[in-house]
């Protein structure tokens, strides 16, 4: 796996803060957290009208290739470019997955 850079961690914390509020700023961003984030991004059919899903070259089956820095960069650009409404729409589905994010952030 290509290591997650500090800038990438900061970007993903900002996305998660849009969904979960400021407490997500203290979460440790690791591969487990990114996998959950990918699961959340793809969980909501009713929110997907706000934007296309994650760019296809970076998805294998239904799983985002988080180990690839190129894939992470593409997803960050994709979400920064008009993803705000989509992330807000994910708040309710995100609340259901919040305890899993807590555990993933702690490596549990």
């Amino acid at each position, binding site marked *: 796996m290509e290591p997650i850079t500090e800038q990438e961690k900061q970007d993903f914390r900002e996305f998660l803060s849009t969904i979960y509020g400021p407490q997500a700023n203290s979460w440790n961003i690791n591969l487990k957290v990114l996998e959950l984030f990918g699961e959340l991004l793809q969980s*909501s*059919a*009713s929110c997907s009208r706000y934007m296309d899903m994650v760019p296809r070259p970076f998805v294998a089956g239904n799983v985002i290739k988080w180990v690839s820095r190129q894939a992470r960069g593409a997803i960050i650009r994709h979400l920064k470019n008009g993803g705000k409404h989509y992330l807000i729409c994910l708040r*309710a589905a995100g609340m259901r997955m919040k305890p899993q994010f*807590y555990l993933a952030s702690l490596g549990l």
Partner: protein
Amino acid sequence: MKIVRNIIAFLIIVLTIQGCQLNNIKHEADAERESTGGELILKGRVSVPLPESYKKVLLDDQAMIISESGYSVVYRWIDKKEIEFIGSNKSPYDFFKSVFNTPTSDEEKRFLEGLKYKVHRPNSPTDLEFYYFDNGVGQQMYILSNVLSFVIEVTYKGDDNHKYINSVVTHSKLQ
């Protein structure tokens, strides 16, 4: 006369065996009660049983996490502020009651959207209402009461998750 004696002897044997079986059931019930560890009292209002053992306790503003090799449990208290953050003006009780029974708003429908497993509502011996589902890695439970201004969420990840969830249903109570 011999037949009567045989019948009486048979009845004594049957009653003795039944007595032993009842005694065993009682011991199993006692063992079930004793299998829980201590209790966790959330916001001074709700008591939930803790697992038998744990190595770490991690405290956050809105959650407590305990972990042991083989399992972890997240206890969260969801207040009105968190419900408002996701876009609903309902109380936590009304929001979750609606989510698990007749979801109407977009937020209520989205909460369970994508969930692959069925929501269960076990009978409760107390005034608390319990709803739980398999979240893919364990069990996730919500404890509701219309006298509370918050809802408790208990998420168990790991082995023996049904045993712990049953223990929560049996032993949780309002303070």
